[in-house]
C-alpha cells in the first residue's frame, strides 16, 4: 500500500508543471474606414513575415524543414496569408481584445529551413498591433 501511495504521490507531484495556457484570441482589430492603405503587403506585410515568420512558414520548405510549422501555413505570399488571416491574428496579433504572443516561438533557425540555433526576433507590441490591423485591412480588401 505504501508503494502505491508513493507512486500516486510522485505522479501528482509532477502535475505542477502544467501546459502553456496562452490561448489564441481574436484581437478585435479593425481596418480604419476609409482604408488609408498605409499598411499593405508591400509596405508592411512582406517585411514583417520575412523578419518573423518565413524561416519556418514558407511554401519553399518541405515538412521536414519547417521546424514544427504546420503544413499549408505559409506566409511568403499575400495569398498564403489570406488563407488563414484569423489564425495569424490569433497567434501573433495585438488589438483591443487581446495581445497574442504564441508566435513567433522562443527559438528559431537562422536560415529558412535550417536548424534551430538562435532566439527568435520578437515583434514589439506596436508591430503586433500593426499586424492585426493589416490583416484586417487585407481581409477587407479581399472582400472577406
Amino acid at each position, binding site marked *: *500500500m505504501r*508503494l*502505491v501511495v508513493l*507512486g*500516486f504521490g510522485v*505522479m*501528482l507531484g*509532477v*502535475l505542477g*508543471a*502544467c*501546459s*502553456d*495556457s*496562452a*490561448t*489564441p484570441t481574436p484581437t478585435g482589430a479593425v481596418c480604419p474606414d476609409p482604408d488609408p492603405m498605409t499598411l499593405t503587403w508591400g509596405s508592411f506585410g512582406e517585411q514583417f513575415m520575412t523578419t518573423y515568420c518565413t524561416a519556418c512558414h514558407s511554401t519553399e520548405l518541405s*515538412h*521536414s*524543414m*519547417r*521546424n*514544427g*510549422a*504546420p*503544413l*499549408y*501555413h505559409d506566409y511568403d505570399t499575400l495569398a498564403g496569408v489570406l488563407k*488563414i488571416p*484569423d*489564425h495569424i491574428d*490569433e497567434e501573433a496579433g495585438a488589438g483591443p481584445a487581446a495581445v497574442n504572443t*504564441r508566435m513567433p516561438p522562443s527559438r528559431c533557425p537562422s536560415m529558412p529551413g535550417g536548424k*534551430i540555433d538562435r532566439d527568435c526576433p520578437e515583434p514589439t507590441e506596436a508591430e503586433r498591433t500593426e499586424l492585426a490591423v493589416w490583416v484586417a485591412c487585407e481581409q477587407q480588401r479581399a472582400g472577406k
Partner: protein
Amino acid sequence: MKRWLAAGAVTGWLIVPAGAARADHDMAMSGHQHADAPAVSIGVAVQAAEFETMSYVGSYQSIAPTVAWMHGWFGANATLGLYHLDENGRGTYGMGDAMLGAHAAVIRRGEAEAGVALHVMLPTGSEVDNLGMGHVMVMPALWGAWQGGRLGASASAGYARALTSLDGAHHDHGPTPLVDPMNLQELTWSVAADVEVGHHVRLGGRAQGGVPIGDGRTRVISGGRVAWGMARVSTAFELQVGLAGDPFTVRGVLETALRF
C-alpha cells in the same frame, strides 16, 4: 491467476500508456483479478508511432510509468507519459497529459462482470507543443468483460468531456494533440477479444475509438496483441493502426508490469 491474466490481456490493463489509457480509458486497468487482499502493480510502457495529419508529418516515442492499486471490486491507477515528438522537422521532449483513474465492478455473474469507471486526464502536456489537450478531461464509462475457458472478450462505452468552453474552437490543425488526439466532447468505445494459446501466452485483437459530439473527428484504432504473463509479471506487445481520424498511421506498444 488464470483469470487475472485473461482479464488483463482482454482489457489491456497490464500497463496502459497515456495514449492507450486515453483512448481505452474505460477499460484500462479495470483489474478483474478478484483479489481480496490489496494488490499493487507498477509497470512501464514504451511506444513508438508515426503520424501524418492534415498539418503535421512525424513520429513520437514515449515511456509511460504506471502505478495501480486494486482491492476486491475496486481499483485505481495513474499514468504519465514522457514523450519525444518530431513534428514537421522539430523535435520536442516533454510530458503528456497525466491520467488518473478509478473503477469498480458492479455486477459479477459467473464468468462475466460489468462495472463503471471514471478517468480524469490532467493537462500536464503542453498544448502548444502538441503534447497535451490543454484542458482537464473527464471520462466516465461503463465496461463489461467475459472469460470463458481460453476465450475472453470485453467491451466498453463512455463519454469524454473537456472542462472548457466548447465554443472556443479555433483554427483547425487537425487532430490534437498529436501524441493522442481526442475531441473536446465525444463518445468513446472499445471492443476486444483474445484466446489463450498455451505457455501463458494470449493472442488477441481490439478496436477502439471516439465519436465526436459536435465538431470533431471520428477516430478508430485497431490492433493485434500478444501477451505473456505469470503470477507476478506480465508483458505484452500491441501493434496498432489508425483506421480513421488520423490518430497515427501505425503504433507499437510494449508494456510490462510487476505485481506485489
